[in-house]
Protein backbone atom coordinates (compact mmCIF):
# COMPACT_ATOMS: atom_id res chain seq x y z
CA UNK A 1 0.00 0.00 0.00
CA UNK A 2 1.63 3.17 -1.11
CA UNK A 3 -0.86 5.60 0.37
CA UNK A 4 -2.65 5.60 3.67
CA UNK A 5 -5.85 6.45 1.78
CA UNK A 6 -5.82 3.04 0.18
CA UNK A 7 -6.49 1.09 3.34
CA UNK A 8 -8.38 -2.00 2.27
CA UNK A 9 -9.55 -5.24 3.77
CA UNK A 10 -9.72 -8.76 2.35
CA UNK A 11 -13.19 -8.11 0.92
CA UNK A 12 -12.01 -5.04 -0.96
CA UNK A 13 -9.04 -6.94 -2.34
CA UNK A 14 -11.19 -9.82 -3.61
CA UNK A 15 -13.91 -7.62 -5.09
CA UNK A 16 -11.45 -5.41 -6.96
CA UNK A 17 -9.46 -8.39 -8.26
CA UNK A 18 -12.55 -10.22 -9.51
CA UNK A 19 -13.89 -7.05 -11.11
CA UNK A 20 -10.92 -6.90 -13.46
CA UNK A 21 -11.96 -10.23 -14.98
CA UNK A 22 -15.23 -8.77 -16.31
CA UNK A 23 -14.84 -7.29 -19.77
CA UNK A 24 -16.60 -4.44 -21.46
CA UNK A 25 -19.85 -5.42 -23.18
CA UNK A 26 -20.26 -8.60 -21.19
CA UNK A 27 -23.43 -9.80 -19.53
CA UNK A 28 -22.57 -10.96 -16.03
CA UNK A 29 -24.76 -13.09 -13.75
CA UNK A 30 -23.85 -12.23 -10.27
CA UNK A 31 -25.01 -12.99 -6.75
CA UNK A 32 -24.99 -10.47 -3.97
CA UNK A 33 -22.19 -9.62 -1.62
CA UNK A 34 -18.63 -9.57 -2.91
CA UNK A 35 -19.55 -10.79 -6.43
CA UNK A 36 -21.98 -7.91 -6.82
CA UNK A 37 -19.36 -5.47 -5.60
CA UNK A 38 -17.04 -6.89 -8.27
CA UNK A 39 -19.69 -6.43 -10.97
CA UNK A 40 -20.38 -2.86 -9.99
CA UNK A 41 -16.71 -1.98 -9.83
CA UNK A 42 -16.24 -3.37 -13.35
CA UNK A 43 -19.09 -1.31 -14.70
CA UNK A 44 -18.00 1.88 -12.96
CA UNK A 45 -14.27 1.59 -13.53
CA UNK A 46 -13.23 -0.24 -16.71
CA UNK A 47 -16.21 -1.96 -18.41
CA UNK A 48 -18.89 0.70 -18.83
CA UNK A 49 -21.09 -1.33 -21.16
CA UNK A 50 -20.97 -4.52 -19.14
CA UNK A 51 -24.31 -5.39 -17.60
CA UNK A 52 -25.33 -7.25 -14.47
CA UNK A 53 -28.24 -9.69 -14.51
CA UNK A 54 -29.60 -11.35 -11.41
CA UNK A 55 -30.97 -14.87 -11.09
CA UNK A 56 -34.12 -13.23 -9.78
CA UNK A 57 -34.73 -12.14 -13.37
CA UNK A 58 -33.82 -8.46 -13.47
CA UNK A 59 -31.46 -6.97 -16.03
CA UNK A 60 -29.20 -3.96 -15.86
CA UNK A 61 -30.66 -2.22 -12.80
CA UNK A 62 -29.57 1.33 -12.07
CA UNK A 63 -30.11 1.77 -8.39
CA UNK A 64 -29.24 4.30 -5.75
CA UNK A 65 -28.95 1.56 -3.13
CA UNK A 66 -26.92 -1.63 -2.70
CA UNK A 67 -28.87 -4.85 -3.35
CA UNK A 68 -28.67 -7.13 -0.34
CA UNK A 69 -30.05 -10.15 -2.17
CA UNK A 70 -30.59 -11.37 -5.72
CA UNK A 71 -34.21 -10.22 -5.68
CA UNK A 72 -34.74 -7.22 -3.46
CA UNK A 73 -36.12 -3.98 -4.88
CA UNK A 74 -32.64 -2.61 -5.52
CA UNK A 75 -32.22 -5.27 -8.22
CA UNK A 76 -35.25 -3.94 -10.12
CA UNK A 77 -34.74 -0.20 -9.56
CA UNK A 78 -34.75 1.33 -13.06
CA UNK A 79 -33.89 -2.05 -14.54
CA UNK A 80 -33.98 -2.66 -18.28
CA UNK A 81 -36.09 -5.79 -17.97
CA UNK A 82 -37.64 -8.11 -15.41
CA UNK A 83 -38.46 -11.70 -16.29
CA UNK A 84 -39.23 -14.93 -14.53
CA UNK A 85 -36.40 -16.83 -12.84
CA UNK A 86 -36.73 -19.87 -15.13
CA UNK A 87 -36.53 -17.57 -18.15
CA UNK A 88 -33.38 -15.84 -16.90
CA UNK A 89 -31.73 -19.17 -16.16
CA UNK A 90 -33.00 -20.47 -19.51
CA UNK A 91 -31.19 -17.54 -21.11
CA UNK A 92 -28.13 -18.64 -19.13
CA UNK A 93 -28.45 -22.22 -20.41
CA UNK A 94 -28.87 -20.88 -23.95
CA UNK A 95 -25.54 -19.10 -23.73
CA UNK A 96 -26.54 -15.46 -23.29
CA UNK A 97 -24.53 -14.94 -20.11
CA UNK A 98 -20.85 -14.36 -20.68
CA UNK A 99 -19.49 -14.52 -17.16
CA UNK A 100 -20.76 -15.56 -13.75
CA UNK A 101 -19.46 -15.58 -10.23
CA UNK A 102 -19.86 -18.59 -7.98
CA UNK A 103 -18.56 -19.65 -4.61
CA UNK A 104 -18.81 -22.36 -2.00
CA UNK A 105 -17.55 -23.68 1.29
CA UNK A 106 -15.27 -26.20 -0.42
CA UNK A 107 -13.42 -26.25 -3.72
CA UNK A 108 -11.28 -29.03 -5.15
CA UNK A 109 -8.30 -28.93 -7.49
CA UNK A 110 -10.54 -28.95 -10.57
CA UNK A 111 -12.73 -26.07 -9.43
CA UNK A 112 -15.68 -28.19 -8.40
CA UNK A 113 -17.61 -26.57 -5.56
CA UNK A 114 -19.64 -27.54 -2.52
CA UNK A 115 -22.26 -25.17 -1.13
CA UNK A 116 -24.65 -27.83 0.16
CA UNK A 117 -23.28 -29.72 3.16
CA UNK A 118 -20.16 -30.57 5.16
CA UNK A 119 -20.69 -34.14 6.21
CA UNK A 120 -18.15 -34.38 9.07
CA UNK A 121 -18.87 -37.69 10.78
CA UNK A 122 -22.37 -37.59 9.31
CA UNK A 123 -23.88 -37.87 5.87
CA UNK A 124 -25.90 -35.89 3.33
CA UNK A 125 -29.05 -36.65 5.30
CA UNK A 126 -27.46 -35.81 8.68
CA UNK A 127 -24.54 -33.54 7.93
CA UNK A 128 -22.29 -31.77 10.39
CA UNK A 129 -23.07 -28.46 8.66
CA UNK A 130 -25.94 -27.91 6.31
CA UNK A 131 -25.54 -24.93 3.96
CA UNK A 132 -28.09 -23.15 1.74
CA UNK A 133 -27.75 -25.49 -1.25
CA UNK A 134 -27.11 -24.73 -4.88
CA UNK A 135 -29.40 -21.81 -5.54
CA UNK A 136 -28.35 -20.95 -9.06
CA UNK A 137 -24.72 -21.99 -8.57
CA UNK A 138 -25.05 -25.38 -10.27
CA UNK A 139 -26.76 -23.71 -13.23
CA UNK A 140 -24.18 -20.95 -13.53
CA UNK A 141 -21.31 -23.44 -13.18
CA UNK A 142 -22.95 -25.69 -15.81
CA UNK A 143 -23.92 -23.10 -18.42
CA UNK A 144 -22.22 -19.74 -18.01
CA UNK A 145 -19.68 -18.72 -20.66
CA UNK A 146 -17.02 -18.82 -17.98
CA UNK A 147 -17.04 -18.45 -14.22
CA UNK A 148 -15.06 -16.66 -11.59
CA UNK A 149 -14.88 -18.53 -8.29
CA UNK A 150 -14.70 -16.25 -5.25
CA UNK A 151 -14.01 -17.61 -1.78
CA UNK A 152 -11.74 -17.01 1.20
CA UNK A 153 -8.64 -19.15 1.38
CA UNK A 154 -9.19 -20.88 4.72
CA UNK A 155 -7.53 -23.79 6.40
CA UNK A 156 -10.02 -26.44 5.34
CA UNK A 157 -11.84 -25.29 2.20
CA UNK A 158 -9.34 -26.08 -0.56
CA UNK A 159 -9.81 -29.82 -0.27
CA UNK A 160 -8.60 -32.94 -2.04
CA UNK A 161 -12.14 -34.34 -2.08
CA UNK A 162 -15.49 -32.57 -1.75
CA UNK A 163 -18.10 -33.92 0.63
CA UNK A 164 -20.75 -32.97 -1.95
CA UNK A 165 -20.28 -31.63 -5.47
CA UNK A 166 -22.85 -28.85 -5.85
CA UNK A 167 -21.43 -27.03 -8.88
CA UNK A 168 -19.26 -28.55 -11.58
CA UNK A 169 -15.84 -27.16 -12.40
CA UNK A 170 -13.61 -29.31 -14.59
CA UNK A 171 -15.00 -32.49 -12.94
CA UNK A 172 -12.19 -35.06 -12.91
CA UNK A 173 -9.96 -32.80 -15.02
CA UNK A 174 -8.57 -33.11 -18.52
CA UNK A 175 -11.36 -33.28 -21.08
CA UNK A 176 -13.97 -34.53 -18.59
CA UNK A 177 -15.93 -31.29 -18.78
CA UNK A 178 -15.62 -30.99 -22.54
CA UNK A 179 -17.22 -34.43 -22.87
CA UNK A 180 -20.06 -33.57 -20.50
CA UNK A 181 -22.54 -31.66 -22.72
CA UNK A 182 -22.27 -28.60 -20.50
CA UNK A 183 -22.67 -25.38 -22.46
CA UNK A 184 -20.55 -23.31 -20.09
CA UNK A 185 -16.78 -23.11 -20.36
CA UNK A 186 -15.98 -23.68 -16.70
CA UNK A 187 -14.00 -21.69 -14.15
CA UNK A 188 -11.49 -19.17 -15.45
CA UNK A 189 -9.92 -18.43 -12.09
CA UNK A 190 -10.34 -18.56 -8.33
CA UNK A 191 -10.08 -15.27 -6.49
CA UNK A 192 -9.33 -15.47 -2.77
CA UNK A 193 -8.25 -12.99 -0.12
CA UNK A 194 -4.66 -14.16 -0.30
CA UNK A 195 -4.10 -15.53 -3.77
CA UNK A 196 -5.47 -16.06 -7.26
CA UNK A 197 -5.52 -19.50 -8.86
CA UNK A 198 -5.92 -20.47 -12.50
CA UNK A 199 -6.37 -23.82 -14.28
CA UNK A 200 -3.91 -25.66 -16.47
CA UNK A 201 -4.92 -25.66 -20.12
CA UNK A 202 -4.39 -29.42 -20.45
CA UNK A 203 -5.14 -31.32 -17.29
CA UNK A 204 -7.27 -28.49 -15.81
CA UNK A 205 -5.63 -28.65 -12.40
CA UNK A 206 -5.65 -25.48 -10.34
CA UNK A 207 -2.32 -23.66 -9.92
CA UNK A 208 -1.21 -20.59 -8.04
CA UNK A 209 -1.04 -17.61 -10.39
CA UNK A 210 -0.97 -14.57 -8.07
CA UNK A 211 -0.25 -14.08 -4.38
CA UNK A 212 -0.68 -11.14 -2.03
CA UNK A 213 2.94 -11.37 -0.95
CA UNK A 214 5.50 -13.85 -2.35
CA UNK A 215 6.73 -14.35 1.20
CA UNK A 216 3.46 -16.11 1.94
CA UNK A 217 3.98 -18.89 -0.59
CA UNK A 218 4.60 -21.63 1.94
CA UNK A 219 1.65 -20.50 4.04
CA UNK A 220 -0.61 -20.71 1.01
CA UNK A 221 0.73 -24.16 0.10
CA UNK A 222 -0.15 -25.38 3.58
CA UNK A 223 -3.71 -24.18 3.29
CA UNK A 224 -4.31 -26.07 0.06
CA UNK A 225 -5.29 -29.70 0.50
CA UNK A 226 -3.26 -31.10 -2.38
CA UNK A 227 0.32 -30.60 -3.70
CA UNK A 228 -0.07 -27.13 -5.18
CA UNK A 229 1.55 -26.23 -8.47
CA UNK A 230 2.89 -22.72 -8.76
CA UNK A 231 3.14 -20.71 -11.94
CA UNK A 232 6.70 -20.03 -13.03
CA UNK A 233 5.45 -16.48 -13.62
CA UNK A 234 3.86 -16.06 -10.20
CA UNK A 235 2.62 -12.49 -9.86
CA UNK A 236 1.78 -10.25 -6.95
CA UNK A 237 -1.94 -9.54 -6.53
CA UNK A 238 -2.62 -5.93 -7.39
CA UNK A 239 -4.31 -4.06 -4.55
CA UNK A 240 -7.51 -2.07 -5.17
CA UNK A 241 -7.00 1.23 -6.94
CA UNK A 242 -8.26 4.50 -5.52
CA UNK A 243 -11.08 4.48 -8.06
CA UNK A 244 -12.07 0.94 -7.12
CA UNK A 245 -12.05 1.81 -3.42
CA UNK A 246 -14.14 4.90 -4.05
CA UNK A 247 -16.80 2.83 -5.81
CA UNK A 248 -16.86 0.29 -2.97
CA UNK A 249 -17.25 2.96 -0.32
CA UNK A 250 -20.03 4.58 -2.30
CA UNK A 251 -21.98 1.37 -2.95
CA UNK A 252 -21.88 -0.06 0.54
CA UNK A 253 -22.16 2.77 3.01
CA UNK A 254 -23.56 0.42 5.64
CA UNK A 255 -20.55 -1.84 5.28
CA UNK A 256 -22.86 -4.84 5.35
CA UNK A 257 -21.27 -6.51 2.38
CA UNK A 258 -17.72 -5.35 2.60
CA UNK A 259 -17.46 -5.77 6.32
CA UNK A 260 -16.46 -2.24 7.24
CA UNK A 261 -18.63 -2.67 10.26
CA UNK A 262 -21.77 -0.58 10.54
CA UNK A 263 -23.38 -3.55 12.27
CA UNK A 264 -24.33 -1.53 15.28
CA UNK A 265 -26.44 0.75 13.17
CA UNK A 266 -28.51 -2.21 11.99
CA UNK A 267 -29.62 -2.95 15.52
CA UNK A 268 -31.85 0.04 15.79
CA UNK A 269 -34.53 0.82 13.22
CA UNK A 270 -34.16 4.60 13.46
CA UNK A 271 -30.41 4.39 12.98
CA UNK A 272 -30.97 2.11 9.99
CA UNK A 273 -33.26 4.65 8.39
CA UNK A 274 -30.82 7.41 9.15
CA UNK A 275 -27.98 5.58 7.44
CA UNK A 276 -30.13 4.85 4.38
CA UNK A 277 -31.11 8.50 4.11
CA UNK A 278 -27.64 9.90 4.71
CA UNK A 279 -26.18 7.64 2.07
CA UNK A 280 -28.76 8.19 -0.61
CA UNK A 281 -26.48 9.23 -3.45
CA UNK A 282 -27.72 11.83 -5.87
CA UNK A 283 -26.35 9.91 -8.82
CA UNK A 284 -27.52 6.31 -9.24
CA UNK A 285 -24.84 3.69 -9.57
CA UNK A 286 -25.07 1.81 -12.81
CA UNK A 287 -25.50 -1.90 -12.61
Amino acid at each position, binding site marked *: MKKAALKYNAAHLMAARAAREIKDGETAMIGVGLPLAAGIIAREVHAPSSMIVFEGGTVGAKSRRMPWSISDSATSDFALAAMELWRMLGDLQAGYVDVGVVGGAQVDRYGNLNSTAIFGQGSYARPKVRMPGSGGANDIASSCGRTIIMMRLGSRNFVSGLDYL*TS*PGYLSGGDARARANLSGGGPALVVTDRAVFRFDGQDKEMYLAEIDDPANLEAVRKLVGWPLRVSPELKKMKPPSAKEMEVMHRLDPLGIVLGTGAELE*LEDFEKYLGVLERNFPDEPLSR
Partner: protein
Amino acid sequence: MTSGRKKLDKVTDLASVVNKYVTDGCSICLGGAIARESVAVAREIVRQQKKDLTLMGAAMTSAGEILVGAGCLKRIEIAYFWIGVVGQGFNFRRAVEQGVPRRPKVADYSNFSASLRFLAGSMGIGFMPTRSLRHSDIIRYNPDIKTMADPYTGQEVALVPAANPEVAFIHVQRADPSGNAVIMGNLWNDPTLARAARKTIITCEEIISEQEIRTNPNLTAIPRYCVEAVVPLPFGAHPEPVDGYYWMDQPFRRDFALRSQSREGFLGWLQEWVWDCADHNAYLEKLGARRIQALAAIEKRFRQGMAR
Protein backbone atom coordinates in the same frame (compact mmCIF):
# COMPACT_ATOMS: atom_id res chain seq x y z
CA MET B 1 -60.01 -27.14 -10.01
CA THR B 2 -63.28 -26.26 -8.37
CA SER B 3 -65.80 -23.60 -9.09
CA GLY B 4 -63.88 -21.13 -6.92
CA ARG B 5 -61.93 -20.28 -10.07
CA LYS B 6 -65.11 -19.29 -11.86
CA LYS B 7 -66.36 -16.67 -9.41
CA LEU B 8 -65.87 -13.00 -10.10
CA ASP B 9 -65.53 -11.89 -6.48
CA LYS B 10 -62.99 -14.06 -4.72
CA VAL B 11 -62.04 -11.68 -1.91
CA THR B 12 -61.65 -13.30 1.50
CA ASP B 13 -59.28 -13.19 4.50
CA LEU B 14 -56.00 -14.84 5.44
CA ALA B 15 -57.20 -17.01 8.32
CA SER B 16 -60.01 -18.43 6.16
CA VAL B 17 -57.85 -19.40 3.20
CA VAL B 18 -55.14 -20.98 5.36
CA ASN B 19 -57.81 -22.88 7.26
CA LYS B 20 -59.60 -23.99 4.12
CA TYR B 21 -56.79 -24.78 1.71
CA VAL B 22 -53.82 -25.85 3.85
CA THR B 23 -54.54 -29.32 5.16
CA ASP B 24 -52.16 -31.36 7.29
CA GLY B 25 -49.88 -33.34 5.03
CA CYS B 26 -50.49 -31.25 1.91
CA SER B 27 -47.90 -29.74 -0.43
CA ILE B 28 -47.54 -25.97 -0.65
CA CYS B 29 -45.46 -23.40 -2.42
CA LEU B 30 -44.96 -19.76 -1.55
CA GLY B 31 -44.42 -17.04 -4.12
CA GLY B 32 -41.50 -14.66 -4.14
CA ALA B 33 -38.30 -15.02 -2.11
CA ILE B 34 -36.96 -11.89 -0.49
CA ALA B 35 -39.09 -9.91 -2.99
CA ARG B 36 -42.77 -10.42 -2.09
CA GLU B 37 -41.99 -13.42 0.06
CA SER B 38 -45.14 -14.79 1.72
CA VAL B 39 -43.98 -14.24 5.28
CA ALA B 40 -47.40 -13.33 6.72
CA VAL B 41 -48.80 -16.52 5.19
CA ALA B 42 -46.02 -18.54 6.84
CA ARG B 43 -46.84 -17.00 10.24
CA GLU B 44 -50.54 -17.82 9.77
CA ILE B 45 -49.74 -21.42 8.84
CA VAL B 46 -47.76 -21.70 12.08
CA ARG B 47 -50.53 -19.99 14.03
CA GLN B 48 -53.01 -22.56 12.76
CA GLN B 49 -50.53 -25.34 13.64
CA LYS B 50 -50.60 -27.00 10.23
CA LYS B 51 -48.50 -30.15 10.18
CA ASP B 52 -46.51 -32.44 7.91
CA LEU B 53 -46.42 -30.04 4.98
CA THR B 54 -44.23 -30.48 1.93
CA LEU B 55 -42.69 -27.17 0.84
CA MET B 56 -41.83 -26.96 -2.86
CA GLY B 57 -39.96 -24.07 -4.37
CA ALA B 58 -36.71 -22.68 -5.68
CA ALA B 59 -35.46 -20.38 -2.92
CA MET B 60 -36.88 -19.39 0.44
CA THR B 61 -35.71 -17.12 3.24
CA SER B 62 -37.75 -15.79 6.20
CA ALA B 63 -40.95 -17.69 5.39
CA GLY B 64 -39.08 -20.98 5.12
CA GLU B 65 -37.12 -20.38 8.32
CA ILE B 66 -40.33 -19.71 10.26
CA LEU B 67 -42.04 -22.84 8.91
CA VAL B 68 -39.09 -25.17 9.47
CA GLY B 69 -38.37 -23.74 12.91
CA ALA B 70 -42.00 -24.21 13.96
CA GLY B 71 -41.83 -27.86 12.84
CA CYS B 72 -44.51 -27.58 10.13
CA LEU B 73 -42.44 -29.20 7.38
CA LYS B 74 -42.15 -32.89 6.68
CA ARG B 75 -40.36 -32.45 3.37
CA ILE B 76 -38.52 -29.67 1.57
CA GLU B 77 -37.96 -29.72 -2.22
CA ILE B 78 -35.86 -26.68 -2.92
CA ALA B 79 -32.64 -25.17 -4.27
CA TYR B 80 -31.78 -22.60 -1.61
CA PHE B 81 -32.89 -22.20 2.01
CA TRP B 82 -31.27 -19.50 4.16
CA ILE B 83 -31.68 -16.02 5.62
CA GLY B 84 -28.72 -14.34 4.01
CA VAL B 85 -26.64 -11.21 4.56
CA VAL B 86 -27.65 -10.74 8.21
CA GLY B 87 -27.27 -14.38 9.19
CA GLN B 88 -27.52 -18.05 8.37
CA GLY B 89 -30.59 -20.26 8.14
CA PHE B 90 -30.19 -21.44 11.72
CA ASN B 91 -33.58 -23.14 11.92
CA PHE B 92 -32.89 -25.01 8.69
CA ARG B 93 -29.48 -26.03 9.99
CA ARG B 94 -30.84 -27.23 13.34
CA ALA B 95 -33.58 -29.21 11.61
CA VAL B 96 -31.27 -30.95 9.15
CA GLU B 97 -28.20 -31.32 11.37
CA GLN B 98 -29.86 -32.16 14.69
CA GLY B 99 -33.47 -33.02 13.86
CA VAL B 100 -34.71 -30.13 16.04
CA PRO B 101 -37.66 -29.76 16.25
CA ARG B 102 -37.89 -32.44 13.54
CA ARG B 103 -35.80 -33.52 10.58
CA PRO B 104 -37.51 -32.79 7.28
CA LYS B 105 -36.55 -34.84 4.28
CA VAL B 106 -34.69 -32.51 1.90
CA ALA B 107 -34.67 -32.94 -1.88
CA ASP B 108 -32.07 -30.60 -3.36
CA TYR B 109 -32.38 -29.01 -6.81
CA SER B 110 -30.73 -26.03 -8.48
CA ASN B 111 -32.70 -22.80 -8.96
CA PHE B 112 -33.19 -23.50 -12.66
CA SER B 113 -34.20 -27.13 -12.34
CA ALA B 114 -36.49 -26.35 -9.39
CA SER B 115 -38.11 -23.71 -11.59
CA LEU B 116 -38.49 -26.08 -14.54
CA ARG B 117 -40.50 -28.40 -12.31
CA PHE B 118 -43.14 -25.68 -12.00
CA LEU B 119 -42.91 -24.86 -15.70
CA ALA B 120 -43.72 -28.50 -16.48
CA GLY B 121 -46.49 -28.48 -13.89
CA SER B 122 -47.91 -25.24 -15.28
CA MET B 123 -48.29 -26.84 -18.71
CA GLY B 124 -49.79 -30.13 -17.59
CA ILE B 125 -46.81 -32.22 -18.62
CA GLY B 126 -44.86 -34.59 -16.41
CA PHE B 127 -41.24 -33.50 -16.72
CA MET B 128 -38.77 -31.08 -18.23
CA PRO B 129 -35.22 -31.60 -19.50
CA THR B 130 -32.18 -29.55 -18.50
CA ARG B 131 -28.44 -29.56 -19.01
CA SER B 132 -27.87 -28.65 -15.36
CA LEU B 133 -27.60 -31.18 -12.52
CA ARG B 134 -25.96 -34.11 -14.28
CA HIS B 135 -22.41 -33.49 -13.24
CA SER B 136 -23.06 -32.96 -9.57
CA ASP B 137 -24.12 -34.75 -6.40
CA ILE B 138 -27.53 -33.10 -6.64
CA ILE B 139 -28.59 -35.89 -8.94
CA ARG B 140 -26.76 -38.48 -6.84
CA TYR B 141 -28.75 -37.75 -3.71
CA ASN B 142 -32.09 -36.88 -5.32
CA PRO B 143 -33.68 -39.98 -6.83
CA ASP B 144 -36.43 -37.91 -8.46
CA ILE B 145 -33.94 -36.56 -11.00
CA LYS B 146 -33.47 -38.85 -13.98
CA THR B 147 -31.35 -38.75 -17.11
CA MET B 148 -32.02 -39.64 -20.71
CA ALA B 149 -30.40 -39.31 -24.10
CA ASP B 150 -31.90 -36.42 -26.06
CA PRO B 151 -33.51 -38.36 -28.92
CA TYR B 152 -32.54 -35.67 -31.42
CA THR B 153 -28.90 -35.12 -30.52
CA GLY B 154 -28.04 -38.22 -28.52
CA GLN B 155 -26.60 -36.03 -25.77
CA GLU B 156 -27.44 -36.77 -22.16
CA VAL B 157 -29.83 -34.46 -20.34
CA ALA B 158 -31.30 -34.51 -16.85
CA LEU B 159 -35.05 -34.67 -16.28
CA VAL B 160 -36.93 -33.20 -13.36
CA PRO B 161 -40.50 -34.15 -12.44
CA ALA B 162 -43.35 -31.66 -12.67
CA ALA B 163 -44.31 -29.85 -9.46
CA ASN B 164 -48.03 -29.41 -8.89
CA PRO B 165 -48.37 -28.39 -5.26
CA GLU B 166 -51.83 -28.54 -3.78
CA VAL B 167 -51.76 -24.88 -2.77
CA ALA B 168 -49.77 -21.83 -3.85
CA PHE B 169 -49.78 -18.53 -1.99
CA ILE B 170 -48.50 -15.66 -4.07
CA HIS B 171 -48.09 -12.20 -2.65
CA VAL B 172 -48.40 -9.47 -5.30
CA GLN B 173 -48.60 -5.71 -5.43
CA ARG B 174 -52.10 -5.49 -6.90
CA ALA B 175 -55.00 -7.71 -7.87
CA ASP B 176 -58.62 -7.24 -8.83
CA PRO B 177 -61.38 -9.10 -6.97
CA SER B 178 -61.46 -11.91 -9.53
CA GLY B 179 -57.71 -12.55 -9.16
CA ASN B 180 -56.09 -10.85 -12.13
CA ALA B 181 -52.75 -9.99 -10.55
CA VAL B 182 -50.06 -7.43 -11.30
CA ILE B 183 -46.49 -8.09 -10.21
CA MET B 184 -43.96 -5.27 -10.36
CA GLY B 185 -40.21 -5.81 -10.46
CA ASN B 186 -38.94 -9.21 -9.39
CA LEU B 187 -41.25 -11.96 -10.65
CA TRP B 188 -39.53 -15.10 -9.40
CA ASN B 189 -41.49 -17.95 -10.96
CA ASP B 190 -44.80 -16.69 -9.71
CA PRO B 191 -46.79 -16.57 -12.99
CA THR B 192 -45.69 -20.19 -13.41
CA LEU B 193 -46.40 -21.25 -9.80
CA ALA B 194 -49.91 -19.81 -10.09
CA ARG B 195 -50.63 -22.19 -12.95
CA ALA B 196 -48.83 -25.22 -11.52
CA ALA B 197 -50.66 -25.32 -8.19
CA ARG B 198 -54.00 -27.07 -7.84
CA LYS B 199 -55.35 -24.03 -5.94
CA THR B 200 -53.75 -20.61 -6.12
CA ILE B 201 -54.35 -17.95 -3.49
CA ILE B 202 -53.37 -14.39 -4.31
CA THR B 203 -52.50 -12.16 -1.38
CA CYS B 204 -51.97 -8.52 -2.27
CA GLU B 205 -50.91 -5.15 -1.04
CA GLU B 206 -53.90 -3.51 -2.75
CA ILE B 207 -57.15 -4.53 -4.39
CA ILE B 208 -57.72 -2.58 -7.61
CA SER B 209 -60.63 -2.51 -10.02
CA GLU B 210 -61.02 -4.71 -13.07
CA GLN B 211 -61.15 -1.44 -15.00
CA GLU B 212 -57.62 -0.60 -13.90
CA ILE B 213 -56.37 -4.06 -14.89
CA ARG B 214 -57.81 -3.48 -18.36
CA THR B 215 -55.75 -0.37 -19.01
CA ASN B 216 -52.64 -2.51 -19.58
CA PRO B 217 -53.14 -6.24 -20.12
CA ASN B 218 -49.39 -6.75 -20.59
CA LEU B 219 -48.85 -6.02 -16.90
CA THR B 220 -51.13 -8.82 -15.71
CA ALA B 221 -48.80 -11.59 -14.52
CA ILE B 222 -51.54 -14.00 -13.42
CA PRO B 223 -54.96 -14.28 -15.09
CA ARG B 224 -58.04 -14.87 -13.00
CA TYR B 225 -58.76 -18.34 -14.31
CA CYS B 226 -55.89 -19.78 -12.25
CA VAL B 227 -56.96 -18.04 -9.05
CA GLU B 228 -59.09 -19.53 -6.29
CA ALA B 229 -59.16 -16.68 -3.73
CA VAL B 230 -57.88 -13.14 -3.25
CA VAL B 231 -56.74 -11.79 0.13
CA PRO B 232 -55.90 -8.14 0.79
CA LEU B 233 -52.75 -8.32 2.94
CA PRO B 234 -50.85 -5.04 3.21
CA PHE B 235 -47.23 -5.48 4.34
CA GLY B 236 -47.69 -9.20 3.85
CA ALA B 237 -44.01 -9.69 3.00
CA HIS B 238 -42.50 -7.81 5.97
CA PRO B 239 -39.61 -7.96 6.89
CA GLU B 240 -38.86 -8.75 3.24
CA PRO B 241 -39.39 -6.05 0.61
CA VAL B 242 -42.07 -5.53 -2.03
CA ASP B 243 -40.78 -3.77 -5.16
CA GLY B 244 -42.25 -0.30 -5.28
CA TYR B 245 -44.13 -0.68 -1.98
CA TYR B 246 -41.66 -1.04 0.90
CA TRP B 247 -38.02 -1.77 1.55
CA MET B 248 -36.40 -4.53 3.62
CA ASP B 249 -36.51 -4.24 7.38
CA GLN B 250 -32.91 -5.28 7.98
CA PRO B 251 -32.93 -4.65 11.74
CA PHE B 252 -35.94 -6.96 12.03
CA ARG B 253 -34.25 -9.64 9.90
CA ARG B 254 -31.04 -9.27 11.88
CA ASP B 255 -32.92 -9.66 15.15
CA PHE B 256 -34.55 -12.80 13.77
CA ALA B 257 -31.22 -14.23 12.63
CA LEU B 258 -29.48 -13.46 15.93
CA ARG B 259 -32.23 -14.89 18.09
CA SER B 260 -32.64 -18.00 15.96
CA GLN B 261 -29.01 -18.95 16.60
CA SER B 262 -30.37 -20.86 19.59
CA ARG B 263 -33.53 -22.93 19.75
CA GLU B 264 -34.63 -21.01 22.85
CA GLY B 265 -34.01 -17.71 21.13
CA PHE B 266 -36.14 -18.73 18.16
CA LEU B 267 -38.96 -19.97 20.40
CA GLY B 268 -38.92 -16.60 22.13
CA TRP B 269 -39.13 -14.87 18.78
CA LEU B 270 -42.01 -17.14 17.77
CA GLN B 271 -43.86 -16.36 20.98
CA GLU B 272 -43.41 -12.65 20.48
CA TRP B 273 -44.19 -12.35 16.76
CA VAL B 274 -46.56 -15.28 16.08
CA TRP B 275 -48.29 -16.62 19.17
CA ASP B 276 -48.73 -13.26 20.87
CA CYS B 277 -50.13 -11.67 17.69
CA ALA B 278 -53.71 -12.82 17.11
CA ASP B 279 -53.45 -12.06 13.41
CA HIS B 280 -51.57 -10.03 10.78
CA ASN B 281 -53.18 -6.80 11.96
CA ALA B 282 -51.96 -7.39 15.49
CA TYR B 283 -48.47 -8.04 14.05
CA LEU B 284 -48.56 -4.75 12.16
CA GLU B 285 -49.78 -2.93 15.26
CA LYS B 286 -46.91 -4.36 17.23
CA LEU B 287 -44.49 -3.21 14.54
CA GLY B 288 -46.01 0.24 14.74
CA ALA B 289 -47.28 2.63 12.13
CA ARG B 290 -44.07 4.66 12.20
CA ARG B 291 -41.99 1.68 11.18
CA ILE B 292 -44.14 0.45 8.32
CA GLN B 293 -44.69 3.94 7.00
CA ALA B 294 -40.97 4.61 7.04
CA LEU B 295 -40.24 1.42 5.09
CA ALA B 296 -42.83 2.47 2.51
CA ALA B 297 -41.50 6.02 2.31
CA ILE B 298 -37.89 5.00 1.75
CA GLU B 299 -38.95 2.60 -1.02
CA LYS B 300 -40.94 5.32 -2.79
CA ARG B 301 -38.01 7.67 -2.54
CA PHE B 302 -35.67 5.17 -4.23
CA ARG B 303 -38.25 4.41 -6.95
CA GLN B 304 -39.15 7.98 -7.81
CA GLY B 305 -39.43 8.23 -11.60
CA MET B 306 -40.52 4.64 -12.15
CA ALA B 307 -44.02 3.60 -13.17
CA ARG B 308 -46.14 2.65 -10.23
